[in-house]
């Protein structure tokens, strides 16, 4: 009997995602204290030191996660990477019509069918990758660079680190909204818990990918 579901994410991918999520939220929280006057008591003295320590522990997890992903599921890792960097006319068109997609649904007029990741997801992934690199470099400079790098390098590191947060945070909020609130797309969160989405969802939101999966014979 034909399965109701299509396999979307491997266990490694899911594990990496949730580790990344966990690390990111800890980093966001412990770093974010600095920006919110109401939360500043958490930055002061011993609490602040604990927050800074937690930030570092989370940073290690944050940096190591992609490696775990690569080791656990190199095909998935490389495939997702390739996917994120391959952009076609449909992607651009999708972006132009993204508002329609999000307000009227995947079947709205003119919205082209998408691959495994739609252009919005690709954009998110690209931002995450760039931010990851920036976070890592500037973070390490701030961690180990005291007295070792020129003050200007340190100062710019702080600024770049903080700007990266702003960009990533905005996308993170969009992401959260889509997978937990938005009625058209929230079903997709299943893929991160169970590893699968329904055939209907796959066909509707990732038409090209569904066809490929069907063609490969992995689903009947």
């Amino acid at each position, binding site marked *: 009997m034909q399965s109701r579901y299509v396999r979307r994410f491997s266990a490694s991918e899911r594990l990496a995602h949730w580790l990344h999520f966990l690390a990111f939220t800890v980093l966001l929280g412990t770093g974010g204290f600095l920006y919110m006057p109401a939360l500043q008591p958490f930055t*002061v003295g011993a609490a602040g030191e604990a927050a800074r320590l937690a930030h*570092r522990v989370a940073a290690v997890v944050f940096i190591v996660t992609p490696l775990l992903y690569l080791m656990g599921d190199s095909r998935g890792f490389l495939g997702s990477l390739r996917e994120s960097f391959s952009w076609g006319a449909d992607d651009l068109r999708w972006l132009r019509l993204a*508002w329609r997609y999000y*307000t009227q649904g995947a079947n709205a007029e003119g919205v082209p069918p998408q691959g495994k990741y739609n252009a919005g997801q690709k954009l998110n992934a690209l931002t995450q990758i760039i931010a990851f690199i920036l976070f890592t470099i500037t973070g390490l400079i701030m961690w180990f660079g005291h007295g070792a790098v020129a*003050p200007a390098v340190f100062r710019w590191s*702080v*600024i770049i680190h903080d700007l990266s947060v702003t960009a990533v*945070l905005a996308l993170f909020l969009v992401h959260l909204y889509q997978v937990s609130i*938005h009625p058209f797309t929230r079903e997709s969160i299943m893929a991160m818990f169970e590893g699968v989405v329904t055939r209907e969802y796959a066909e509707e939101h990732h038409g090209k990918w569904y066809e490929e999966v069907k063609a490969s014979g992995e689903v009947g």
Partner: protein
Amino acid sequence: MGKVSLLIDTSKCTGCRGCQVACKEWNDLAATDTTNWGSYENPPDLSASTWTRIAFHEVEGDSGVKWLFLKQGCMQCTQAVCVEVCPTQALQHHDMGFISLDQERCNGCGYCAEFCPFQIPRLEANAFTGQGKITKCTLCQDRVTNDMSPACAKTCPANAIYFGDRQEMLATAKQRVDELKAGGHSNASVYGETELGGLGRMYVLLERPAQYGLPENPSPALAGFWQKGIQPFGYAAVGLTLLGLGFNWLAQRRNSALSVKAQEEA
């Protein structure tokens, strides 16, 4: 008491380093292991256990060699970058015009150390955990708030360190510079009158500031960028995102309702 200031008259300083030792004695700071590195100068840098020190600058000029001594330490800026970047208010402007440091509040982030235009605060932290506290001269807060002069000023045998009301110090400094200029020191100047809004540690310099390793025009550099730039920008970005998502939610709800209605009508 109004704003106070140290005034260091480099034209009188003999480089004896009594101030360096008196600071350690009063503030109970440990001696560090040093070696002679081809200089009279030691310890080689400010540190958690060295809040003030004399830097020796040997300058060769047309009129022969000069040996300039500069007592380093916190400049107690009016426009204090350290206070601006400190996320915990461990560093604060004291009413008397110096920058106080509450180590209980410090979380060891070290931003002050990196953003200070004079590179004065020092963070001695565990390289991995980052745990540590910032240290710097606080003008002997415990002394000056009890009607005593800072330990360095108290001990200076050459009378090269003055302490008192900032306006008086400034007047003394200007008078001294006039004397020095009249005596042929054409490069003599007051340092700290206006720099960074006015410093609580001023110098009478015999030569250009650069010859003492002081920045000619100290600037807050990127300090304000954080509070004045990134923070509002971050708030705006997150706010706009949430607003957009809200609109999206309303729009899709309206569309869903419309399509349900259309189906019903159909």
